[in-house]
């Protein structure tokens, strides 16, 4: 008992020591570039309900930074990464973003996952004129010059998923999501397209982020008997959802589920047996057969463990760092305004998910894939969009007449 207690104390001390260490990052002006180093921020949730997804994105971003440093850095400067914890809390994200930019003077920030966190950070980046590289699929309906949206727009993930479901003959849908801006907007767009296609939305349910009580939602699904469930839950609510679905006799094998936020890492953390047979739509799967992908997986595993799972947002986080480096070198400056102008004129560049490019609206031109989760935790790619999809921040059905011009 005494051992346990002293260990607790030791951990408490370690935790505060770490926090202090993180606070003592170097302070510098001129967009983070002082002397022979340039500092950048890495801001993900290392704790809280989103940690299940975001820690590995931080790892991938750090891997890219280490690789670039090993290869000589950017414009002859080594990158110093200042890692901060957004703690799954939007206001913490905003506060840490402002700390990174205004106190630490970083040149740019890589991070964010939930749209709630991005929306909270947006005013900070617009006020300071800095640049955020956002690695996750989202709901569109936003267009800021201070964010590089590398994750999928709705027409690069949600709509290809719907198109696939229609091709499978699914006619009735049940939409379930966490209760915040991404699931609500994604479902708004999906509903418009489902109704336009003459199909039915049998129900729509939202659970607070991190919520674990799905009893009512599952009773509704049992009543509605949809052909397929489209799941936009984020974080560890998914664990509760799939556990309770299974307890109610509706495992993914019996009731198809298409998820937008479950990748290889989430499936692994949840226990593959729980989600085996469910579908996902992403721009990248670990099972993609590409030489660049093999190289990335090998490098990541060499650094973070041989059984590490690789996900779409991790690859986006990784390619964001390289895109920033390329844009800085093209602009010959760390100034965020010059960097973002250079980034959209980079043209196509190679990444673990194949060649991609930033469009003029600062979103990524990329392909979409549909995967089915196998027992070994990998997705079998069962459909793809074929050609690259141009990003459309404003869905023409849900937000007619709006467009993104930067």
């Amino acid at each position, binding site marked *: *008992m005494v051992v346990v207690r002293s260990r607790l104390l030791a951990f408490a001390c370690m*935790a505060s020591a770490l926090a202090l260490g993180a606070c003592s990052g170097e302070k510098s002006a001129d967009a983070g570039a002082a002397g022979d180093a340039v500092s950048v921020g890495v801001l993900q949730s290392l704790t809280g309900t989103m940690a*299940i997804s975001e820690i590995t994105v931080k790892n991938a971003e750090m891997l890219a930074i280490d690789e670039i440093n090993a290869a000589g850095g950017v414009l002859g400067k080594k990158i110093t990464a200042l890692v901060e914890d957004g703690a799954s809390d939007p206001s913490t994200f905003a506060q840490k973003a402002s700390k990174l930019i205004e106190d630490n003077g970083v040149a740019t920030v890589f991070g964010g996952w939930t749209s709630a966190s991005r929306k909270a950070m947006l005013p900070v980046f617009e006020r300071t004129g800095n640049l955020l590289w956002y690695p996750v699929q989202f709901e569109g309906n936003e267009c800021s010059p201070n964010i590089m949206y590398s994750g999928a727009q709705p027409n690069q993930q949600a709509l290809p998923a719907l198109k696939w479901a229609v091709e499978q003959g699914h006619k009735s849908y049940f939409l379930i999501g966490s209760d915040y801006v991404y699931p609500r907007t994604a479902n708004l767009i999906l509903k418009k397209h489902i109704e336009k296609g003459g199909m039915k939305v049998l129900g729509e349910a939202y659970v607070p982020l991190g919520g674990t009580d799905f009893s009512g939602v599952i009773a509704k699904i*049992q009543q509605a008997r949809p052909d397929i469930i489209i799941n936009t839950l984020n974080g*560890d609510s998914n664990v*509760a959802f799939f*556990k309770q679905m299974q307890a109610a006799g509706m495992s993914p094998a019996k009731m198809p589920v298409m998820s937008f936020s479950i990748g290889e890492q989430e499936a692994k953390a949840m226990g593959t047996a729980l989600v085996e047979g469910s579908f996902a739509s992403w721009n990248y799967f670990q099972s993609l057969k590409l030489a660049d992908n093999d190289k990335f997986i090998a490098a990541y595993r060499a650094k973070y463990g041989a059984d590490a799972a690789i996900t779409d947002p991790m690859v986006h986080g990784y390619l964001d760092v390289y895109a920033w480096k390329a844009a800085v070198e093209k602009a010959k400056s760390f100034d965020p305004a010059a960097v973002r102008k250079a980034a959209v004129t980079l043209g196509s560049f190679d990444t673990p998910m194949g060649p991609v490019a930033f469009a003029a609206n600062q979103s990524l031109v990329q392909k979409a894939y549909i995967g089915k989760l196998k027992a070994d935790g990998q997705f079998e790619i069962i459909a793809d969009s074929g050609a690259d999809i141009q990003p459309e921040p404003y869905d023409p059905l849900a937000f007619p007449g709006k467009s993104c011009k930067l």
Partner: protein
Amino acid sequence: MDSAALLLPQLFNGLSVASLYLLAAVGLALSFGLMRVINMAHGEMLMLGGYLAWLTLMVVPGGFGIIAALPVAFLGTAAIGALVHMGLIRRLADRPLDTLLATWGLSLILQQAARDLFGPIGVEVRAPDWLSGSFTLAGVVIPSARLLIIVMTILVLGGIAALLDRTRVGLDIRAVNQDRMMASATGINVRAVELIVFCVGSGVAGVAGVLLALLGPVTPNAGQVYIVPAFLVVVMGGLGSLTGTSVAALILGLFTALAQIFVDVSIAQMLMLVLVILFLQVRPQGVVAVRSRALDV
């Protein structure tokens, strides 16, 4: 959607949600009734229960590991409860407000400890095959895991009622509850009684943590989700009454489940808060008012 068809399933779901609220709240109710201690670290006992289930499943794999985990979690969290009581709460006995702050700090420390020991992502506790199915009764699909939770809650409540009503220790607890000074004057070791109550309360929370792991994630934050409903149940039940706590848990569990027929989970939770506020306006003493000198200020 057909609301009438959802009524029966939601009544059952309400019972199962009420059971979880009750298991989470019993320890709080007991320790507040007896010591006027508001234990902010109570949610972390649930969390620890979940991790103890995970540890037990590593040692005892197979179908009945989860059953083995119940006594392990009870004893483990009870032991930690004993440490908390002797190391923290006893030393702040006459300063209830300070205990509030100290136990809140303890809650943060325990969460961080779990993060450092087991990782921030959480661990995998799967229901065994015999618990992951469901059966249909009167047109209602009843998941076995939820049924187990209801049964365990009845057993735990029965156990606590028997402890309070039929044993010497229970007599002491009731005596201290009614009049601490007088009980002390008749030779009852008040400190020991408090320790026992705190351990039992923590142990029950540990059992709740194991059962929660069947339905939800086991993460360092797992306890935080249930601590607010648990406090609501205690406040609404009337401080320090087991019957009141049970009735309040039933009311709140059924209310949220039935409200979910018509509204989303987020709105249902808000309505639950409104219900508690309105209820306390009409009946500030809670469902059952205990006349107790321990509560006289």
